[in-house]
């Protein structure tokens, strides 16, 4: 970590959103002008089950301070069962991450339907606030990625 003057903490947050529910929910939040911090950057995936745990690890390695996955509500998955896999995989991954020091608060899975613009926005606001309270992520980060 380079020694520089402490600036305001601007968290890097990666949000994986499934194409059918949560990405549309984020679109609805946008068209309804429901704001949330610009720190959240959304990556579109066909289904939350497309998110390989490796992507989450990669994000932390590259310096992300928080990773959130959004998918359809259980039972409403466009592909029937995808979000069930997400739920199990991420429960396991997040507890392992917690074990090695990436706090549970830095990771989250949330179900947001296409009609839930408000929920998308409040979820993101809450999540960013949580990351602010946790501060910069120092675990797992590849030091070469820092500047």
């Amino acid at each position, binding site marked *: 970590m380079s020694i520089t003057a402490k600036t305001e903490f601007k968290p*890097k947050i*990666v949000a994986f959103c499934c194409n*059918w*529910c949560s*990405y*549309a929910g*984020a*679109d609805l*939040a*946008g*068209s309804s*002008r*429901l*704001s*949330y911090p*610009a720190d959240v*950057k*959304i*990556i*579109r*995936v*066909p*289904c939350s*089950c*497309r*998110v*390989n*745990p*490796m*992507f989450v690890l*990669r*994000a932390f390695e*590259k*310096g*992300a301070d928080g990773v959130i996955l959004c998918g*359809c509500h259980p*039972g*409403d*998955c*466009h*592909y*029937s*069962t*995808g979000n069930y*896999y997400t739920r199990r*995989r991420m429960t396991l991954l997040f507890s392992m991450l917690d074990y090695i020091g990436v706090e549970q608060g830095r990771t989250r899975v949330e179900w947001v*339907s*296409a*009609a*839930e613009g408000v929920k998308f*926005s409040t979820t993101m606001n809450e999540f960013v606030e949580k990351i602010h309270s946790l501060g910069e992520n120092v675990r797992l980060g590849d030091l070469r*990625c820092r500047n």
Partner: protein
Amino acid sequence: MQRIGVFVCHCGSNISATVDVEKVAQMSLLEPGVVHAEDYQYMCSEAGQARITEAVKEKKLTGIVVCSCSPRMHETTFRNAAERAGINPYMVEIANIREHCSWIHKNIEEGTEKAIILARAAIAKVTLNAPLKPGESRVTKRALVIGGGIAGIQTALDIAEAGYEVDIVEKTPSIGGRMSQLDKTFPTLDCSACILTPKMVEASAHDKINIYTYSEVDQVSGFVGDFTVDIRKKARSINMDKCTGCGVCSEKCPSKKISSEFNRGLGKRSAVYTPFAQAIPNVPVIDRENCIKFKTGKCGICEKVCQAGAVDYTQEDEIITEKYGAIVVATGFDTIKLDDFDEYAYNQSKDVITSLELERVMNAAGPTKGHLERLSDGKAPKNMVFIQCVGSRDVTCRGKVYCSKICCMYTAKHAMLIRDKYPDVNVTVFYIDVRTPGKNFDEFYRRAVEEYGVNYVKGQVGKVAPQANGQLLVQAVDLLDNKQILMEADMVVLATAIEPEAGVRKIATMLTASIDTNNFLTEAHPKLRPVESPTAGVFLSGVCQGPKDIPETVAQAGSAAVKAIGLLAKEKLMTNPCTAKSDELLCNGCSTCANVCPYGAITYEDREVNDHGIREVRRIAVVNNALCQGCGACTVTCPSGAMDLQGFSNRQIIAEVDAICR
């Protein structure tokens, strides 16, 4: 190396107001592979698209990033533009800098910084894009309509008139739906049955329409153009081919005290019954839960009296499997349960009824033969109170937050009809707002007030208390005069909120159609694609999509039919090319991917592979592109990393992650 062009849209001022679009274009030029970047007022316009095609030709671009609105909006537009310019349409990526950026951030610095990062992620992704080619799939020229109310009937008639086969699946013993329970319709005061039953007859007589009543959808598989549906025909215990509809069985049935669903529990029916006189088909059903024969094994009277020999106690549920190209959901609505609304004394007093129950009371075929009378003692009421918004526009969690839309108008209708037929009955309506947007609606409401002398009071009712003398004491506030009101009423009618029919969530799950928190099905786009579900091949008709009156339902039913016809008219459909693909050098044939695939799209094949000079036969996974829907479950589950998803590959997503975290 790719040659990438970045096109940043102002979207008028929708984007440029909070994002410095020029800077986004400039900064994009610094990214590796980007050879062209520009911004323009409306990229989606013809001129904007022309700029893209020109740049492709001039700069020999191989990949395109458009920084604009959501890909759900204009991805297809820009893909088509790319194709016209001579590059593969799947070499286009969209950076969503409107919905996900400019519209939610107020600070231009913040917005610009985020837009640059989103553009960077899209550039990183498009660098790894590969040309993809959609496959083709066939279209089964047959439609399924779930629900046999006015929405379903109209949709089926319109599809059938276009020459396609349609099946209607209706869960109750007859088609007709809620509309068949209504007495009159606003704002014309047409008799509901008189306008509905001809449609019912037309549907049942149509040679392209096949109606399954007393049936439910059990299972759905497949996808647009090629759905396979299991329909459960519940055991009717009556042979439909033999039954002549004479009705002797219902007449002679000794078990006559069963509350009638059609009359909303206000009347009785027998265990073998047709719900109403004009039922289609006119074939009764034996309600096995209440039938003495099924409960005790004795009785059997209906079998003895049936001259056609149609009664069949041994009938069992039958599963019919059929293929469809399109599915229309028309499941309709019900009124909400009023158990949590104790203050209106709905459960305590028989004289507090819902508006739908009043429809039955006022109907000549209803429990009171159309006479307006108190259900407790049969006396004619002198004072009637209508309460609007019971459970609608209710932000406490017991009701519904939305406006049920139809209540203002049907309450005006009830009030008017009562004043017309019984001029000595005083009618008072308590309302929050009277909403009358619709052709001839406000005129109708004003007639109720001005010509028929209905007393409208702006204010809510706090309590309805049944008195010892059988009267109902109504406590309310008059908001305009700012005073408390205490009045006695003989009957209270509750304009109860409507909600989607209870089974709709199960159907939505089977169809993988989106549904909102109020159980209304979600449209593909709220404004531009209001009758399509986001799930291709599934269309929405009637109240299952949101509250509607009859003309709106009929109009939507027609447009759902048009969309279904448009699909059925196609010979072939282009399939999504973003499917899974296994790397034959990495796959070890372990079958893990096949186990998680919801479509059965993965099979195994023994194939000769050339692994760095070693030629051998290996068992490897093969994806059937026609079946694969591209969810990506297999890619994550694959222990050797052999499975990847085209269009959303591991490398592409990781590149996006890297670009965002850089």
